[in-house]
């Protein structure tokens, strides 16, 4: 559940004064929770509706007008999806491969970079940090044409590695910023002791510091995962071989339909598969996600 730092309690929340105010207060409370719940249903409905439909038979899922409740439970849409194109396993694998490489590269580069910016003084430190942050002001959408040319030149076109490197680059400004802050928050006497014990800078980072910046790492990893798992435009441009399609690109193609007809049940199964990892990671680790969001916002 999204918890924010000390929540303000207004005086009127605290005391429930008895008497004729009591009924009015109860009514207000009912109205409040009613409104919040209706809104919650509105936000969750599209997801739940898609989930329900994905478990209908293919025929019922494409029925017009749509059914409000399926006649029976079926995995037909998921079976159809499993056999779609190269098989859903390939596209899921592509997306998972690109996402895990992006997460890994981002973690390694941002940890090293954040540590370097936080703990060392060297000429141009401030300018280089600003340079990396400044790339945030330039939309990645405006450098995709050269990236297409560049990846072809490097023979990285249609590869998971190429796409992951591009995604990593897009993640770096935020990730380095996040990790520098995480290292800044670690008290310096911890390292002093380790240095006196003869620890090398890299050993210091790996053995002493890394365990202390866990939350920062979690935040960076989450943003890198969401960023790469959900990205469409760069994948559309940099991947042209249908065997290398990521999940969003594959779903776009499936929605375009074969011979003009869309298999709506299959689409819902695909949409559910694309939502599940994001929703699960967010629900499990939302504290870190929200922290990253707040840190990014405060910086601006």
């Amino acid at each position, binding site marked *: *559940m999204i918890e*924010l730092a000390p929540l*303000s309690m207004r005086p009127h929340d605290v005391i429930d004064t008895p008497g004729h105010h009591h009924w009015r207060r109860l009514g207000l409370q009912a109205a409040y929770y009613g*409104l*919040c719940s209706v809104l919650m249903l509105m936000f969750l409905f599209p997801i739940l509706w898609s989930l329900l439909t994905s478990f209908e038979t293919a025929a019922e899922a494409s029925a017009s007008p749509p059914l409000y409740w399926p006649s029976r439970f079926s995995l037909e849409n998921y079976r159809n999806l499993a056999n779609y194109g190269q098989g859903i396993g390939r596209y899921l694998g592509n997306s998972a491969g690109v996402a895990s490489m992006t997460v890994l590269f981002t973690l390694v580069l941002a940890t090293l970079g954040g540590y370097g910016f936080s703990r060392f003084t060297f000429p141009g430190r401030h300018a280089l940090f600003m340079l990396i942050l400044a790339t945030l002001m330039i*939309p990645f959408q405006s450098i995709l044409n050269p990236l297409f040319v560049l990846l072809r030149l490097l023979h990285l076109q249609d590869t998971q590695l190429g796409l992951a490197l591009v995604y990593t680059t897009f993640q770096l400004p935020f990730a380095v910023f996040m990790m520098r802050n995480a290292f800044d928050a670690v008290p310096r006497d911890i390292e002093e002791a380790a240095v006196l014990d003869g620890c090398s800078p890299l050993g210091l980072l790996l053995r002493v510091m890394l365990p202390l910046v866990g939350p920062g790492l979690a935040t960076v990893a989450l943003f890198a995962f969401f960023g790469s798992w959900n990205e469409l435009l760069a994948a559309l441009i940099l991947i042209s071989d249908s065997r290398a399609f990521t999940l969003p690109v594959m779903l776009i193609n499936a929605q375009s339909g074969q011979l003009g007809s869309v298999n709506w049940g299959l689409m819902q199964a695909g949409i559910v598969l694309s939502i599940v990892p994001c929703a699960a990671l967010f629900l499990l680790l939302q504290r870190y996600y929200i922290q990253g969001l707040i840190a990014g916002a405060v910086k601006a």
Partner: protein
Amino acid sequence: MLALLGLRAPRGRAGLLFILPCLAVTTLFFIVPLLMTAWMSLNNWPLLGHPSFTGLKNYLDLFHDASFWGSVLFTVKYTLVVTPAIFLFAFALALLVHRGVRFVGIFRTAYFLPVVIGMTTASLLWTWLFNDQVGIFSAVLMDLGWIDEPVQWLGDTYSALASIVVMVLWKAAGFTMVILLVGMQAIPVDLYEAASLDGARWWAQVRHITIPLMRRTFALALTMSFIGSFLAFEQFFVMTRGGPFNSTITVVHWIYRASFTYFKLGYGAAMSVVLLLMLLVLSAVQLYLLRDER
């Protein structure tokens, strides 16, 4: 701090080594492409085959390209509609869930959940909800007897725009809500307590305490969603494919089409440079609005 300088100074070189990897990747995949965008924009650059230098021709063509400026105009229109819509909705949500009452965490989580779903997935999902044959919206309205035949929600420009704004509200309001919540909770509680003792009702407190003290957060939330909306692509690419009659094409969509449907990478690069300049202006405005006044 000063005592540590002695410890840190000799390790200066090592510092450079630590930042070298991320610097290298940023240079290769960001700085170099950025310079290449500028260079490509001065060339006739086909998808395959050799580029040829054409100077400012792409920019001159661009200047007279009504469809590009049409896409700029549409993007501005979309941004001007969706930004205040997200802001007002998110502000209402934030007011609703900013108190620490029971279950409030569950509500916040539910309102935020669509943010982590990809824009592509969200667009595909809502295309289905809006579909006239199999979509739930038309079906429910017909069963209620409010309409006689299914509505083509995405069929004409304004109804498509409105439909996409509804989808984006669902998808993005939670993000702005959290930004606003952070600002809202930075306001000292005693201000509300004092106002409450003076007999100020809820709305008076919102008007005279919350809103004036959140100016900076408002500026942040508005500029962030303005910039985000200006770069809109997926929702239009998926939900309207730019139609009907190319009336809902955004700038990014148009750059993509010029570059990879018409294979004019140089021309697309020139458009990218224009987009980039527009975004730099927006970022400068953002920095100006968020400058530290103290």
